[in-house]
Structure formats: structure tokens, C-alpha cells
């Protein structure tokens, strides 16, 4: 074995990576997002997507939904570290393949082309609740909702149908049934 020249230990074997959705309820105050995001960057955690908006105006609460990948140990740390932040009220943690939780992302596609092309594009989106938000003779803006991989696939497929611009959100999540997360 090569003699280590470091005063630090060598990394040990990592366990398997998992993708989780972390939901954080925070006070909607200045710099709260940077506290949450700074925690992730400072401790080397990963953010795949992020969605944040105020959900309760009266109590001034925002809900942040973060999709992240890490070992089970890292995911546990993320939750515990988030709970230590002063403006954080509660933290939810779901596996991406959790059947009891609905995950949705939204995307806006701008299609440019002749009528035919646009029609084909709209047809292709059929499975993902397409809404036509704007249409002209040469273009259309289509809104779809779906899972990350579905939207990934759609934005790839639509390239041949005149897709010239994509705008998409991070995932938001909600539990199924009458229960709410506490």
C-alpha cells in the first residue's frame, strides 16, 4: 500500500445513491432560500431541482421542494441539518419511487413551424395534459405536466417537431389520500 501523506483519513466505501424529494416549510423572509441552498453547497450536497413559492400568506410560509441524490447517510444528514436552520419549520423526506407521493414538474414548449408541425407536436404531448397557452400562424406555446423523465423525453422528441425553446420548473410534491405530512 502506498503510504498516505495526508493528515486526513482516506475515504471509505460509499453506499448506494438514492434520489429523494425533500420538502421544507420555511418563514418567507429575506435570504431564507440562500440559507437552504448555502447549506447544500457548503456541505457538498447535490440539488437536482428546486421549486419554491409562498404557500401561506397569512403565516408568511414558503414551501421549498428539493430533488437531491445522495447515500442514505447523506440524506439523513440533509434532513437533520435543515431542521437546525432557524427559519425552518418542518422538513419532509420522500423517496422518488414512493408510491404514496405525487411528484409533478411543469414545462413550457415553444414550437415554431407550419400548422401541420404544430398539430403533430400537440398530439405528441397528449399524454401529459397539454394546454395551448399561445398560438399564432407559425408558432405555439404548449404547457405540459409530468415526471422529470417524461418531460426529458418530450423535450427530446419534440426537437423534430419545431421545438425551439424549453422552460421548466423543479418538481413539486404532494402526498396521496386524505393525510397531510406533519
Amino acid at each position, binding site marked *: 500500500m502506498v503510504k498516505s*501523506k495526508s493528515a486526513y*483519513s*482516506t475515504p471509505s466505501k460509499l453506499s448506494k445513491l438514492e434520489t429523494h424529494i425533500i420538502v421544507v416549510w420555511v418563514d418567507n423572509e*429575506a*435570504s431564507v432560500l440562500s440559507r437552504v441552498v448555502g447549506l447544500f453547497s457548503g456541505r457538498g450536497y447535490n440539488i437536482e431541482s428546486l421549486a419554491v413559492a409562498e404557500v401561506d400568506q397569512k403565516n408568511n410560509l414558503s414551501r421549498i421542494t428539493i430533488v437531491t441524490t445522495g447515500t442514505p*447517510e447523506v440524506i439523513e444528514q440533509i434532513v437533520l441539518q435543515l*431542521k*437546525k436552520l*432557524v427559519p425552518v419549520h418542518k422538513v419532509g423526506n420522500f423517496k422518488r419511487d414512493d408510491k404514496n407521493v405525487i411528484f409533478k414538474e411543469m414545462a413550457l414548449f415553444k414550437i415554431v413551424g407550419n400548422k401541420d408541425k404544430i398539430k403533430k407536436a400537440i398530439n405528441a404531448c397528449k399524454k401529459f395534459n397539454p394546454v395551448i397557452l399561445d398560438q399564432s400562424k407559425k408558432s405555439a406555446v404548449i404547457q405540459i405536466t409530468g415526471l422529470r423523465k417524461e418531460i426529458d423525453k418530450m423535450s427530446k422528441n419534440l426537437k423534430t417537431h419545431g421545438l425551439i425553446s424549453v422552460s421548466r420548473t423543479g418538481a413539486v410534491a404532494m402526498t396521496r389520500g386524505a393525510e397531510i405530512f406533519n
Partner: protein
Amino acid sequence: MPKLYTGAEIVFKCLEDQKVEHIFGYPGGAVLPIYDELKNHSSIKHILVRHEQGAGHAAEGYARSSGKPGVVLVTSGPGATNVVTALTDAYMDSVPLVCISGQVPTHLIGTDAFQECDTTGITRPCTKHNWLVKNINDLPRIIHEAFEVATTGRPGPVLVDIPKDIQFAKAKYTNPKKKKETKNKNRFNQKDIDNLIELMNKASKPIFYTGGGVVNSGPKASELLRELVSLTGFPITTTLQGLGSYPGDDNQFLGMLGMHGTYEANNAMHDCDLLINIGARFDDRITGKIDEFSPKSKKVHIDIDPSSINKIIKVDLPIVGDVSDVIRSTIKTLKKKNLNLEKSNKQKTSKWWQQIQKWRTKDSLNFINSEKIIKPQHAVQRLYELTKDQDTFITTEVGQHQMWAAQHYKFNKPNRWMTSGGLGTMGYGLPAAVGVQVAHPKKLVVDIAGEASILMTMQEISTAVQYNLPIKIFILNNQYMGMVRQWQELLHEKNYSESYSEALPDFVKLAEAYGCVGIRAENPDELDEKIQEMINIDRPVIFDCHVDQAENCFPMIPSGKPHNQMLLGPKDQEENKITGKGKALV
């Protein structure tokens, strides 16, 4: 109509209500209204430092030796950036600090104004929380909340950034709110305690591994720990920060553990079958190689911070709560069940104690003393012998001298040992000593220092002179950055790249220039007499102790090795060379 107060007045009203007696600070443009108000508040004494980093470390020394939060007051821009090292240090070592910083007026924020910086942005990762006060009406609430956050749960630093116009603006004053339910409250229950006791009953090779959390939990925690240890008859080792929470000269104490811990403590950690962590955090200087850390033990972790648990080492029984409360419940339950572990477990653990005695015979802190040259370990031992009869407070810088101090100075009470462990900040000890002496004006305060570290915050000796703080700076002068040199010797083929200080000041003359006393010791014969002279002087002293330049700090766990593969001192290395047995240890 209620009386209106200016922001500056509100700051002091809050400090008074929080029973603050001392603040450490440095004035500047953006805090002048607060400094102007200082004269009207005689119960609060301001200590003028020479650099804002010094203010931060002094407040740390004050906090750690008194158990009260340290308060820092600095200006915007460079004032705030200079205090960042101290805030980070306090964050790593869980020291309660409240830092108030001035900021440029609200309307200039974001314009790159003179002495403007994004203070809350810069300090966000090194504080528990921080606030930028944009509305004068929020000021009293925020300052009181700042004290609450700094001192509850796992303590730590906080910062309140107050723009200059807010310091002039007027508002009503509101008293601190009654203590609301805070985060990180005790979350353990009787079942956890019962489980702990069951593990204790089953164990035949148990060990307590305790840390700074015991000190942070208050002096009562240390008393309870003593009771628990004596009740169980188990051996105990402490981390660097835990020194003093258990008497250093007690027979059940195995000494410090970790990279430069004792042979018996580290081997006991490796071979134990029950490891009870109380208020420590499995730091990488403690664990060594993670995969081979204490492989055969059940692990219990008692900590107030849930995020400390399972962060590095998976444990079998986590107990989240204040150390005092957990130990108190444990003792109560032990007594109720009438389990006198000391007796019933004596047989079970007697073999374990025999093994520990065997390890002890290695005498791993030994060194080859000299009659010609002062050995640094010998200097610390003599300092200990000559100061142990009075209540002495020790601070340190960072490096070899710090480890020798930890190994050879024995502490009997908590809050007597102030050292930068987590961040490892050279230059911590002198300003920390200033803060300790402010909190304990009549006590002996010694900074065990290295000549390289001390030069980083040397200017604070001027603060000590100004306020007649008779701190003693005990420099183990080997002209090297000793720990750097040691690593270069052991791991980089003796390439002493930039670790030798070519031009050092004459510390005796330097002391005189600052208006304090300089003493130099160059050979072992004069050491005792000169140390005694230092103790007897009721003024700040710089003691320049010339020590062996080549001395290394042993024992040590080499990088990437587990606890049971320690590198021992020169005596042992020599013996083993002859027998050939020691090679496995290297």
C-alpha cells in the same frame, strides 16, 4: 405614548436586559452611534482590542471560561470580515457568541459604499443564524432572539448586522419574550435510559468517551459525570475539548484520546465492547480510519444536536438531549434499580482493567528528558507542577505546544481549558487569554503558546497592558512551525519547506516595548525559578522558553490508521528497534 429609543439605545437596553457586563470591540464609521451611547451605560464595560479577530477570540475565551455568551461589537466592512475567523472558530467549537456589526445606511446597501460588505452573506455559513436589521421596530426582538439562539441547544455564534440609519432611528423597546419552546430540546425518554443501562449491565469492556458537550452543559454536568463514572467503575477518556470535565489525575481516567491521545485510551477505544459517547462528535482527529473504528463495540451517542448522531459513525443507541439531563436520569435509574455496577460489574470488567493496566505500562507520554536543553514536555510539566495548587486557566495556540499542553497539563475542573480544536486557529490563545482574564480578574491565566502562533495575534498584548490584565504568555519557542515540521519529517522526507522562521523578534525586548515583562529561559536549571518569577509578577508577561527544536509530539496515530496502530515515542522506538517488535506499530 410610550417612550421612543434610538437604535443605539435599544442595543444597550437589550445588552443590559441580557445581563451583559463586558463587550469586546473596535469602533469604526458604521458603529459610531452605538459607541456614542456607550458612555450612558456604566454597567457595561467595553474592552478595546487591537484587531477584530482578537475581539472574537477574547469573547470566546470569556464565554468558555464563564459559561456566559461573549459579546463582540465591530464596524462594517473590514471590521466584520476580520471577525469571520473567530466566528468560524466559535461555530466549530460550539461557543456562544453574539456579534453586533455596523452596516452602511440602508439606502446605500448594494451600492458598494465605503466599508460596505455583504456581512450576513459572508457570515451565513459560520453562524448559527444571522440577521440584517432593516426595520428599527424589529431591533429589540432580533437582539433578544440572537442571545436565545446563541445560548440554547448546541451553543454557537450569531451575528446581528445593524445599518447606521437604524442606529439613529427611534422605536419602542420591548422586553425579552419569555422563553419559548426552543428547538433541540430533550427528545429522550425513560426507555432510552433503560436501554443504556441494559447495555451497561451486559458490557465487559465498556468505556466512556466524553467531549466538549459536557463542558457546554454547565459545571453541574461535570459533577454528574464524576458520579456516573464512579458509580459504574468504567474507564473514561475525553476529547481535547472535554479536558477538565473529569479530573485529569483520577485513576479511572485514561487521558485524552485521538491522534495524539494516550496508548491506553486509543487501544481501549479500539477493543471495547461498549462505547458511550457523551457530548462528543466523532471528529476525524478522534476516529482515525473510520472503517476500523472501534469495530467490536455497541455504540451509544448522547448529544443535544440530532445532526451529530450518525453523521460519521453509525450508533446503536442515540440519545438526544442535554448531557446533564441524560446523566441525571441515568444515575437516578441506576440507583432506583439498586444496581451497584461498581460491585456487580467489578468481576466482569476486572479483566478489562487488567488489559488497560498493561497498556498503561507503555507510558506513552514519555519523552527522553535532557539536562542541557529544555524539552517542551518538561516545560509544560514544570508549569503544571508550579501552578496546580491555584485555580489556573490555560489557553493555547495551535500546534505541537497545544498537544503537549493537552497531554501534560492536568485539569480538575471544567471551563479551565480553552483551545481551538475544530478550526485549529493559530493565534487563538493570546486574545482568548485576554477574555478569560476579563472574566476572572483575580485568577492565573496562562497561554501556552508557540512562537509562530503568537505572532499572528501578538498585537493583543497591548490590550492586556491597557486593561492591566496580568496574562502570562508561555511560549515554547523552537523556531519552527513545529507540527508542520513534524509532518514534513515523517511524511515528506524531511523537506522542511517554509516551516522555519528565519527572523524571529527578541520576545523579551518585544515585551518591554509593549510595556509588559519579558522573561527568557534557555536551560533546564533555570526553568523552575523563572516560571515562579513569571507567576509572581502581577502584570502581563511574555515568557520566551527556548526548547529543543527537533522534538516531536508522540504518541500519534499515523494517517489512515486505526486506533490500535499508534506510533510511540523515541524511547519505545529505540527498544523496539532492538527487538524488532515495533515495526507493526509504524
